[in-house]
């Protein structure tokens, strides 16, 4: 059978953002997958040369809409560490709560898109209906539904009132019940199992070797989660990384689904322990030297590198996003699978091209 090269993307019904793969196919089996980019590149890191360290928060929030809050968290904690700024405890808790809300809305968005990728429209709408509740919380507490701009150097710029906290807890209970309702469908439905089990398998060794991160890594049995590094208020909260062993598309779905319950638990813990006090401190001066910082985004570890010279502009800001790290692993997953499974397997890593191209 002769080899055929099939262009997949950049526009494809299953892709929310433009990504290209050159798929070398022989007898309907993918032999090689070469990724192609360059459709939404912006060069945002370069803006650190003309936007001061405070204005850069708004820039990094726009690296990716879906994990905007967590980009800003990573940026702020990295700069604060360089400058020796001690953030008030209440601000650390507030950062944690909004981060976990962000993880939930991202995972719910993905679960809907994933259901859509194998044609399960009603499940897609169900997850997006649940997600609306998180977006309502974001809007009420942070002023925006998606770009949650709450971080500043030295803390946060918004607080949660006692009424807000009670309302969030009530909404989380309802979200938890709604998620339980779909559990049987998600894990016992014949079609979902047929389309996802054994598709795009990545072993633990391959995942580490290829640099995979986040749910992709954990679904291959590696219990690694950057929240274990104890940034924000995670040092005071109890949690264990959610893992699965099979390393296939089903396992990646399983990890994200159970991480939703983990996030609910973390928000409840944070709300039960949140101390009273100020939500920010004034930051004077500018950073100098080099630093790295990493946090756990919904798609996995995001890594920031800073180089500063004591002026209001950074010399260099480099952002290695989770999808960028997961693309080599994705190319491996695609090799050896049937052409018909390619869309589902691509979706299974939760690709964010906006992040990847920055």
């Amino acid at each position, binding site marked *: 059978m002769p080899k055929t090269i099939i262009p997949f993307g950049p526009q494809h019904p299953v892709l929310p953002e433009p990504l290209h793969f050159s798929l070398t196919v022989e007898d309907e089996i993918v032999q090689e997958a070469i990724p192609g980019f360059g459709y939404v590149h912006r060069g945002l890191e370069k803006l650190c040369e003309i936007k001061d360290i405070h204005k850069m928060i708004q820039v990094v929030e726009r690296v990716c809409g879906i994990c905007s809050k967590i980009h800003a968290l990573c940026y702020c904690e990295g700069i604060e560490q360089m400058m020796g700024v001690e953030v008030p405890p209440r601000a650390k808790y507030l950062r944690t709560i909004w981060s976990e809300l962000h993880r939930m809305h991202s995972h719910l968005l993905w679960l809907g898109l994933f259901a859509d990728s194998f044609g399960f429209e009603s499940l897609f709408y169900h997850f997006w209906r649940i997600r609306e509740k998180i977006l309502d919380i974001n809007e009420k507490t942070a002023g925006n539904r998606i770009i949650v701009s709450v971080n500043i150097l030295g803390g946060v710029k918004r607080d949660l009132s006692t009424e807000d906290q009670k309302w969030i807890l009530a909404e989380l209970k309802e979200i938890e019940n709604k998620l339980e309702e779909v559990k049987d469908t998600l894990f016992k439905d014949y079609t979902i199992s047929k389309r996802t089990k054994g598709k795009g398998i990545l072993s633990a060794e391959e995942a580490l070797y290829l*640099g995979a991160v986040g749910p992709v890594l954990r679904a291959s049995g590696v219990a690694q989660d950057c929240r274990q590094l104890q940034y924000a208020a995670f040092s005071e909260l109890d949690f264990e990384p959610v893992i699965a062993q099979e390393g296939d598309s089903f396992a990646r779905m399983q990890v994200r689904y159970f991480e939703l319950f983990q996030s609910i638990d973390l928000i409840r813990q944070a709300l039960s322990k949140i101390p009273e006090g100020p939500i920010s401190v004034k930051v004077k001066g500018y950073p100098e030297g080099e630093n790295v910082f990493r946090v756990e985004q919904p798609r996995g570890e995001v890594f920031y590198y800073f180089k500063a010279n004591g002026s209001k502009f950074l010399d260099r800001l480099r952002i*290695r996003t989770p999808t960028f790290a997961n693309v080599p692993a994705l190319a491996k997953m695609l090799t050896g699978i049937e052409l018909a499974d390619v869309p589902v397997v691509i979706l299974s890593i939760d690709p964010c091209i906006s992040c990847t191209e920055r």
Partner: protein
Amino acid sequence: MEKFSYKIINLQDLLTQVKELREKKYRLVSISCTQVEEKFELLYTFDLNLSLKHLKIIVAKDTPIPSLTCIYEGAFLLENEIQDQFGLSFAKLNIDYKGQLFYPEKNPLFLKNNK
């Protein structure tokens, strides 16, 4: 959180040192490039059980840098991005986009005093 420190190594020792890290099961996290006057600093970051290790090399613009893709296959995206942004070149890259990973034409956007 971990404190940041790095080890400066010679360009010719890069592959040997990275091979040792690979044998110890380190994961390649990132390669971060910065231009300092006419030279370029490349910071290689590796992780083992959430503990980071950094190696730094300093190179001139025309010096070919050995690609890590013979040790870490997935390094090709990190190295191609540096080729795109700074106009540096990596030797023996497994997939070489030749400075056109993100841009349709060669355009090292991050190169200072780019003439």
